[in-house]
């Protein structure tokens, strides 16, 4: 996606050493983050890792235990939510069920005692942009999931916020609608060019929408970067495993110098930048493994199960020692459970992780 140019002016949002505890439970453990104006930032991470909490801290719905939040260079820790100039789209949309779509959009503006004419103008603009003009008189209960989603976004837009916050806005939709709304939000971003912060635990959303992804785990940032950078150069095993479906295969083994001997029997030279000795994990993504039906290849594995999705085939196989391997093949292939399969592992697709799970540099 288009990369927004990072200007030299104050970042749209800056978090410094943000911490948050609920009672005795520490949830956010000191987070530093800078977001530039116009960026589309996605927070991903497993459930309970603190994504929503972080977003709510930014929004001003909760107060950080310590640390500073700066918006456009101004500290806003004590500014109430309504005055930070942010808009939030909630996971459940949180549309006011008893108001019409129009009233939902105007409520916030009325609270600001804006002139009626201006309110009208903004609502109409937003409604046109989101193609919900014809729905203004309806109640949320009379809308489909996708329409509700758009109203929720509309409510965020009319306030003309400096930053949009989204908390898993698509998680309640079914797969089809999700795909569609995903595209719409991306389009919106390229039209409005606002800063957007988007929380999800769906890594497809993260991959496809983000300018930069922030991967969170247990209240800490694991890695920040552009989607494909993260995909191709994960900083550690967690990030590697978290992005990509089916998951990256992890094969345990030991490294001696440049040579890696895996428990499954495979022995390979790997271009390690700093050769050494120790336990390592070799990572390889399912789509990078080549399948030879005739049984030839680097290694032979046994098909345990497979799934024909039409466009692709997932193969779940085992090495003789029992290590499992998932292979994604881009075509339909005839398979049998128990069948022997030759697979080859192109070493340029290798990822190597040390005992501390950190990525090891490879020279390629």
């Amino acid at each position, binding site marked *: 996606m288009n990369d927004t140019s990072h200007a030299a002016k104050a970042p749209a949002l800056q978090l410094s050493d943000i911490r948050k505890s609920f009672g005795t439970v520490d949830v956010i453990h000191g987070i530093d983050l800078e977001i530039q104006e116009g960026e589309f930032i996605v927070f991903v991470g497993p459930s309970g890792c603190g994504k929503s909490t972080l977003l*709510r801290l930014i*929004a001003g*719905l909760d107060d950080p235990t310590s640390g500073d939040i700066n918006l456009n260079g101004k500290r806003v820790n004590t500014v*109430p*939510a*309504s*005055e930070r100039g*942010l*808009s*939030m789209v*909630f*996971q*459940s949309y*949180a*549309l*006011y*069920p*008893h108001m019409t779509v129009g009233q939902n959009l105007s*409520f*916030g503006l009325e*609270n*600001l005692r804006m002139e009626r004419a201006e309110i009208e103008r903004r609502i109409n603009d937003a409604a046109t942009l989101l193609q919900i003009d014809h729905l203004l008189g309806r109640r949320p209960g009379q809308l489909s999931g996708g329409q509700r989603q758009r109203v929720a976004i509309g*409510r965020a837009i009319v*306030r003309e916020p400096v930053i949009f916050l989204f908390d898993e806005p698509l998680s309640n939709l079914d797969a089809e609608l999700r795909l569609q709304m995903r595209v719409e939000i991306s389009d919106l971003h390229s039209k409005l060019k606002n800063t957007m912060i988007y929380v999800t635990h769906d890594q497809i959303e993260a991959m496809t929408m983000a300018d930069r992804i922030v991967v969170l785990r247990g209240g800490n940032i694991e890695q920040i970067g552009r989607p494909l950078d993260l995909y191709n150069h994960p900083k550690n095993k967690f990030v590697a495993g978290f992005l990509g479906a089916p998951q990256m295969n992890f094969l345990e083994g030991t490294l001696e110098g440049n040579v890696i001997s895996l428990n499954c029997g495979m022995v390979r030279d790997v271009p390690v930048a700093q050769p050494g000795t120790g336990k390592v994990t070799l990572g390889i993504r399912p789509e990078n493994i080549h399948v030879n039906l005739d049984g030839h290849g680097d290694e032979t594995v046994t098909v345990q199960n497979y799934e024909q999705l039409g466009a692709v085939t997932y193969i779940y196989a085992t090495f003789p020692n029992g290590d499992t391997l998932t292979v994604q093949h881009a075509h339909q292939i005839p398979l049998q459970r128990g069948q022997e399969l030759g697979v080859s592992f192109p070493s340029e697709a290798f990822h190597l992780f040390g005992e501390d799970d950190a990525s090891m540099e490879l020279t390629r």
Partner: protein
Amino acid sequence: MSRLTTFLSRTAGNGPDRAERIGITDVLAYSYLFFGVLIILVPVLWTFFSSIKSDTAVESFDTRLAPMDQISEMIEDVGEKDVWIYTAEDGSTQLVYKAGPTRKVTDVAPVDDPGAVFKVPRTSLAPHEEMRVAVENYLDPILKRNGQDNFHFFTYLYNSVFVTVIATMVTLLINAMAAFALSKYRFRGRLTFTILIVATLLIPSSIILVSLFFVVWSFGLFGSLWGVIIPAAATPTGVFLLRQYMLTIPDELLEAARMDAASEWRIFWRIIIPLSLPALSVLAILSVIWRWNDFLWPLIVLISDPASHTLQLGLTQFAGEFDTNFHYILAMTVVTLIPITLVFVWLQRFITTGIATTGLK
């Protein structure tokens, strides 16, 4: 037996097609409902039918359904006399009045020939009746006719309506405010307040009657409608019910409103109140019932001021030391029933669906 138990265990969600088969279960269910409703309705209807019977029919406990009333006629030179039907031994009948004391053999005279007194056995006389709706049971007290000058129907009605409406509005407002605080804020003392309020559920009003009497008296609320309205406004039932309901309103809505720059009061008014309507309407119904029907407390507080009597107090007027005007009591009972029945008919949808959704449990 097993059929009987089918009926015990069935709940909603049997597709509508199940109802098409009329089984023994349905027969049992409908019989239960039918008899249940009979038991509920018959006394009420009976009261209504009695209320349109004449004074004498009521006083003599006439159990016939139709309002029969003995006819009396103005007999020349004699005065107003009840008319009886005399059945002679040959079966012929004649309209007569009693021309002397009632004895085994009584003097009577034909109505159309007052002079022709003759003797007949008492047992051959039957009252001459007509069917007549005794509208006077209703109209006398309402229009202050027939010596009912001291029954100020419209004053009582006004007071009852005033107490009911104002008390209900105040109750709804302050209970909703309290419930909002207890359901949507985390603050020091929340648990204490909640427990205090739930504990009030356990304090029957009759227990504190004596001291409440002292308190209300020292507030100077005696004889004032406010003395009835205010003490009853903060109902624990209401707070409890609304709180349970508000707990189900997603916090995200409030947060959305906060992002929308709404003040907390505005959130309450614009978001919480409209969304709690089902629970509020249940509480409204309950409050209307309570306040409209209140008797003992208004009796204590209001009795001294005739201008602030409510209908329920007015009703007591018909019971004297020596005599009780049952026909008026019945008629006015029916009158007090009417508004509550109308409210009921109007709101029964909310009652049945509302309570079910309020989490009043």
